[in-house]
Structures are given as structure tokens and as C-alpha cells.
């Protein structure tokens, strides 16, 4: 049976997210309760979370979360890691026995800083250096898979229902100012932990419900710029598109969103000359980055949280705010279960992204 990456596995699913705009950290219990409500939106073949602000003590190190299928895969990967990074800490990620989660791989994490000498030789900045190392590990090291590689953040995912995965990783013990979650409904049995969402690169994390019809157009576009889409999932391509537009081309998150979910020409033709020039340029230069087909995506990063829907709004995504908190979920019920009286509730509209910036106080 083909593994993730050799075959494209389309899937429907549930997504949720909670953010505290002032950066006040709160336990994972809230997000688990929210995603748990949408139990029927997934089929137990994938669940996962991303949490931002969970490693304040290692805030300036990269926190690599890695799955190993075998002992030699671990040794081979660790050799590469120690060679390219100064690893401060190497430890398994604490987990708890949960009946529905079985045959877990070896799950470890490393706090590391890039080896200055090698970085300079490669002529790359820290982020590009790290990203290339992660892409190389995942592409070339059979049995090793870096499933998150950001600073002061981490992804926690497995094959199972999301609430069981939360319990398995004991996320109630972690404190974060931004949580995203995902429950998967793949149409066949992947049985591989790496395939669950969120999908990450550096401190980007994406949970995504839906399927993009423009996948291969986007993939063959992004692969021009050093990325390798070896997981064949839509989520992977969207992550790389954001990383490329924001990091390589230095575009703001909302500009990147204007590219992925660009408005239609009918609307653009009616806009003011400046706006028309802006969107026409975007759509002509970045036409292949337009994401077509039904999707709702939540992008977590250290800058904040971005929620976008496809232009035709063929997938549900509800948003709500209360005080400093902002909530997102595939269903309004999953918001109300954790915040019964939100000040404002609305459905995210097609091609009108919602960006919730993080205002971290100085010391964070």
C-alpha cells in the first residue's frame, strides 16, 4: 500500500484555533475541548496540534520534533543534526498511554542553534539554512521525519482522533498563546504519523480542511525555488507557498493571502486604480500561486494567526472574538463549547482573509 508521498490522499477534516492577542499563555485543554466536539468530522486516521510559546526557556533555539521509525534512522539523523547544529537538549517528547493510539514511532525533540561556521559557508541566513536542512532530512533520511522545526513552538500529531492525540501528548500541561488543531478524515488508511496535520516548516504551521484542485500547478511552481513536495499533500504546498512569499520575497502575510485567495477579475476591474494595479500585478506575477478548489486554512506563526477561505467559500470556517482571545473553527459549535458568549461571531468570507496579529510584550 503506497505511503504518504507516493500517492495523493484527499481528505475532508475539522480545524480549530485559539489565540490570545496579548500573548498571555493558556493550557491546551481549551483547544482539545474545541476540536473534540467535531469528532464526527474526522475518522480517527489523523489528528494534531500546533502550539506557540510553549518553550520560553529555549525561545531562541529551533525546537525540532522528529519521528523515527527505527534506531539507525535516529542515529543517521542525529549525526546530521549534531554536525549542522549545536544541539543543547535531546530528549523524547513525553507521552501517555492512550488505548486508541497504537504502534507509535520513536518521538524525540532537540533544541538546537545552527552551526555558525557551516551557515556562513553555505552563504545562507539562519532560517534558510535550517529550512534546507529540514527539507533534506525529510527527503533523504528514510524513516526520519522532522514534523516541526520552529522557534518557541511545536507540533504534536499522530494517527488517532485529535482529542486522544492531545491526551497522548499531555497537552494540558503545556501553556501557549496560540493553539491550532486538526482532525483528519482521509479517504484511505495512511497509517503514517507524518501525514497528519498540522504541517510545519520553521515556525509556520498549517491546518487545512479541503482539497485544492490547483495542487499540481502550485506544486510545479513552488518546486522552482528549492522546495521538494515529497508528501503530496495540499497542506505541504500551501506551507511552502507562504514560506516562499513571506520569507524569500519578504511579503506581508496578508499580501501572501491576497495571492493565494486572490479576488476575481470582475471584482478587480471595479477597484480603484491603485488597487487594480496591485491585484493585477499580483495575479499576473503570482498566477501559479493562486489556490483553487474548496479549502479553509489556518496558518499559525510567531507573527500571529491567519485564516483564509477559498474564493467561492465552499468550505466552512467560523471566527469569533472575546476580549483578547480570538477563536476559529470549522463549526460555530466548536467555538461556543469553549467560549459560550463571544462578543463577535462571523463566517470568514471567500477571498477575504482574517489576520489576528500577536502583540508580544517585550520580554517574551
Amino acid at each position, binding site marked *: 500500500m503506497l505511503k504518504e508521498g507516493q500517492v*495523493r490522499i484527499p481528505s475532508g477534516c475539522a480545524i480549530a484555533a485559539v489565540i490570545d492577542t496579548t500573548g498571555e499563555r493558556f493550557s491546551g485543554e481549551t483547544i482539545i475541548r474545541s476540536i473534540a466536539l467535531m469528532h464526527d468530522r474526522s475518522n480517527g486516521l489523523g489528528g494534531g496540534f500546533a502550539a506557540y510559546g510553549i518553550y520560553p526557556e529555549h525561545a531562541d533555539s529551533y525546537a525540532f520534533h522528529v519521528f523515527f521509525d527505527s534506531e539507525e534512522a535516529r542515529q543517521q539523523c542525529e549525526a546530521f543534526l549534531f554536525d549542522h547544529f549545536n544541539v543543547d537538549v535531546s530528549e523524547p517528547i513525553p507521552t501517555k498511554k492512550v488505548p486508541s493510539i497504537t504502534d507509535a514511532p520513536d518521538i524525540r525533540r532537540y533544541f538546537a542553534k545552527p552551526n555558525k561556521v557551516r551557515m556562513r559557508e553555505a552563504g545562507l541566513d539562519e532560517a534558510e539554512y535550517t529550512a534546507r536542512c529540514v527539507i533534506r532530512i525529510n527527503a533523504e533520511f528514510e524513516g526520519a521525519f522532522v514534523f516541526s522545526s520552529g522557534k518557541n513552538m511545536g507540533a504534536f500529531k499522530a494517527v488517532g482522533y485529535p482529542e486522544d492525540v492531545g491526551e497522548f501528548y499531555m497537552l494540558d500541561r503545556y501553556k501557549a498563546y496560540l493553539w491550532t488543531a486538526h482532525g483528519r478524515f482521509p479517504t484511505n488508511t495512511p497509517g503514517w504519523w507524518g501525514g497528519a496535520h498540522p504541517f510545519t516548516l520553521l515556525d509556520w504551521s498549517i491546518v487545512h480542511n479541503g482539497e485544492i484542485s490547483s495542487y*499540481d500547478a502550485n506544486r510545479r*511552481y513552488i518546486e522552482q525555488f528549492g522546495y521538494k513536495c515529497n508528501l503530496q499533500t495540499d497542506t505541504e504546498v500551501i506551507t511552502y507557498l507562504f514560506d516562499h512569499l513571506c520569507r524569500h520575497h519578504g511579503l506581508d502575510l496578508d499580501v501572501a493571502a491576497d495571492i493565494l485567495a486572490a479576488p476575481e477579475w470582475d471584482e478587480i476591474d471595479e477597484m480603484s486604480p491603485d*488597487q487594480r494595479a496591485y491585484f493585477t*500585478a499580483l495575479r499576473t506575477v503570482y*498566477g501559479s500561486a493562486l489556490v483553487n478548489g*474548496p479549502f479553509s486554512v489556518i496558518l499559525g506563526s510567531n507573527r500571529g494567526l491567519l485564516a483564509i477561505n477559498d474564493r467561492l467559500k465552499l468550505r466552512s470556517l467560523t471566527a469569533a472574538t472575546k476580549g483578547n482571545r480570538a477563536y476559529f473553527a470549522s463549526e460555530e459549535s466548536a467555538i461556543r463549547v469553549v467560549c459560550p458568549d463571544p462578543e463577535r461571531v462571523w463566517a470568514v468570507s471567500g477571498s477575504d482573509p482574517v489576520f489576528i496579529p500577536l502583540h508580544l510584550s517585550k520580554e517574551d
Partner: protein
Amino acid sequence: MMRYFQPEFHIVRDPARCIHCGCCVRQCANECHYFDEDGKTVLCRDESCVSCQRCVCLCPTGALRIEKFKSDYRESAVWTQQVQKEICRQASTGGTLLSAMGNPKPYPIYWDHMLLNASQVTNPSIDPLREPMEIRTFLGRKPDRLSFTKDKKLLTEMPPQIKLETPILFSAMSFGSISLNAHRALSAAAKELGTLFNTGEGGLHPDLHDMGQYAVVQVASGRFGVHKDYLNNSAFIEIKIGQGAKPGIGGHLPGEKVNVEVSNARMIPVGSDAISPAPHHDIYSIEDLRQLIWSLKEVTEGKKPVCVKIAAVHNCAAIVSGVARAGADIIAIDGFRGGTGAAPTRIRDNVGIPIELALASADQRLRDEGIRSRVSLLAAGPTRNAADVVKAIALGADAVYIASAALIAIGCHMCQTCNTGRCNWGIATQREDLTRRLNPEIAKERLVNLVTAWNHEIKEMLGGMGINSLDSLRGNRLMLRGIGLTEKELSVLGIRHAGE
């Protein structure tokens, strides 16, 4: 002179239906129909018939039918009648066999070996009746990145972009090879459709000066009709390096088609054979091409994108990459089935490769080198219907050229004898009594109908795939599956086999 072989076609006249109105007599430029002495009874002779179907279409009582001339040679898979006939003709003329249109040989047509995807369940089709289906296409060089002010005002200076309302353009057919009325129809149709027509290597006729903004003006090796105003009075400029029907050789417009109008537009003497040499005698290497591209941009003050049209030949992927790096904004690849007004039969039937393979490998090569997004790719030869258009775009083309299809829309019946200049439908001729048969108003309406119909079909196929913008179809090879193709063909096309 003795005739060594039999005619190609046989005219069948049904005596029970023929009312001897003489319409066919007056309409056949090859004089296959003629009156008996009584001036009333209509007779016919086969040897000059090219089966252009003019008489069949116009006969008010449907009394006429054209058949292949049936006189069976002894069966031989090697020495077919066609092979023998060609030898006989050359034995009597001693000259190169000339013919027209695209390669008719039964080489595989890969469009017919690729199937399109459709959404089921996991992602819904998009209903073209409810959602706007976007087929707007921009051609031209794209900057690598864009920069904006905080409040999203564009800072980057965008190079000139050609905005088209459809991914279909009319390809090069020179004034001279086809009639002025045909050019009038093509330009008017292009204007109404929001697309462009191509002057071909014959220059732009003064009457069409105002239509220059809807014209792709061609610069060919003969430099016919090329001057400063011609270059500036255009949508974009196309350097013609090659043509799918006759890769490696130049253009050939038989002298009898060069009347005073054609000679004015081309700035050549009346009646002289218009030979545009191959190669351009100022482009012997890629750097020369870069200089020509540069000088064309200079003369148009950088306001016009420059396209380079090459024939689909063996290493066209590398050529495309080189041309892109030489400064071309748009690159057109013309497959070996692309049409032509006149070409040596041998070259038309044996030189060049299918557009599908050329386009697929060129697109992939540009992506491997990370420069695909900088340039626009145009594919042509043949584009027979809307499915071919969708498949070309899925393989990676930005847009497609159509020419033969356009000719058929306005009356051409592919008799493949444009080189004779006696086109009974008034298209590939300069004879005043024949060009009159193409009413530019009717032709324009038929061209607009054709492309509008194809636009609808493209939108329907897009909707079926769950895509509502061409941008998401461009290069989206997952939308294609091969059928009846070898592993190698699948890998060159970069698509999986159906069922995978």
C-alpha cells in the same frame, strides 16, 4: 503529354437532382465543371479536382458529391498509390513537391491520448452557471518578485503585459498567403473577442493600420513589411525563427500570389516569389537573437513584449530555455502539424516533433531552471478544439495559437492546395474574383462564434475539474492522465497513466 497516374478525386453528379443551374460551373476556379456547347447542360472533368467541396456546398439541390478516384492498384503496403503518384509527379516535373496545411501523416496525436480529470465527492465541481469562470490570460515577461508600500501600493515597475480575454490567439497567416478579407475578418474578430491576430511574415496592410493594436506583428527572416511604425503599431512583436510545418526552411510565397497589394505591404516587386530565407541571415547564434530582441525593444521603447516563435524540433526544450534567457518575453512553439500556405511535402511530412511532447519538455525544463514563471509559453499546431486548448494549458502553456481551425471556421475545407493560389473559398488567394467570396463580416462572425464556443467549453471543463481560473490549470499535470501511451511517452509528457 501522357498522363501516368489517375486523378485523385472523382466528381459524382446525380442526374436526377442536377437542375443545370450552372452555379458549380461559375464557382469552380479549377474549372472542373463546364457547360456543354448548348450552354445549358453541365458536364465535369476529374483531373483538376482538389475536393475543396465548394460546388458540393453551394449546389442548391445537393446533386454533387466528391469521391476518391477509385482505380485499384495491386495491393502493396510499401508502394501505395500515394507513393507511386508522388514518384510519377516528380518524374514529370523534376521539381520539389509542394503542398500546404499541416503534416497529414498518421503519426500519433497525443491530444487524443490524454484524458481530463473531473471532481467527484472530495472537491465539488464549480458550477460555471453560478460562479465566474476566469479565462483571462496575461502574456509577457513577469518580474521575479513584487514590492509594495505598507498600504499595498505597487512599487515594482511591471514590464508590458498583454491582457487577453481568452487563452486563444489567431496564429500567423501572412497577407499574401491569405487574402486581405481574411485579415480583415481575423483582426475584427480578435478585437471583438479581446484577443489578437497575427500579421504573419507579410506585413500589415495599410487598410488595417487602425487594427495594429490587435495585431501580433511578425518579424521573419525576409523582414517583409518591417519598419518602425509597423513595430510600434502592434500588441507585441513576434520573431519568426521557425514554423511547425516546415522547420529549418524559410517561407515561400509563390509569385502568382504577389499582386500589387501584397507587394506594397511586403515592400517587394510584384510577381516575385517571396522567399524568406532560413535562417535569419543576422541570427546565426543565440547572442544574435539577444541583440535582435534588444533592438526590437529599443525601437519600441520597451513598450512591446517580444515573442520568439520556434518550430517543435528535437531539442526545443533547451532552445526554449536559451531563448528565454536571451530576453524573449513570450515563446511560441509550433508543432509539426501546424499549417502553412506552401511547404515542400517531404519536409512537411517528416520534419519536426509533436507539439504535445515539445511543450511538455519545454515547460518542465523551464521549471527545472526556475525561470518558467518569468516568460509566457504559447503552443500551436494543431489546436483542433477546446479540449486541445485545456490539455495544452494543463501541460504548461499560457495560451494557444489557432490558425487552421480558424480557416476551417471561415470556409476552408483542407484541400491542401493553398500554394496554387486558386482557393475556391476566397481565403488563400489574391485573385479578386475569388477573394470576393470571403465576406469579412460573415467570416468575422464565424470566428467570433468559434472562439466564444470554445471559451464556453473551456469554462465547462474547468468547472468540472473544480477550478475556476485558468491560472490554476496552467501546468497542472495532475489534471491529465495518459491512455495507450508508453512509459517513456508518459514521462516526457510528465503525466501518469489513466487508472494510476
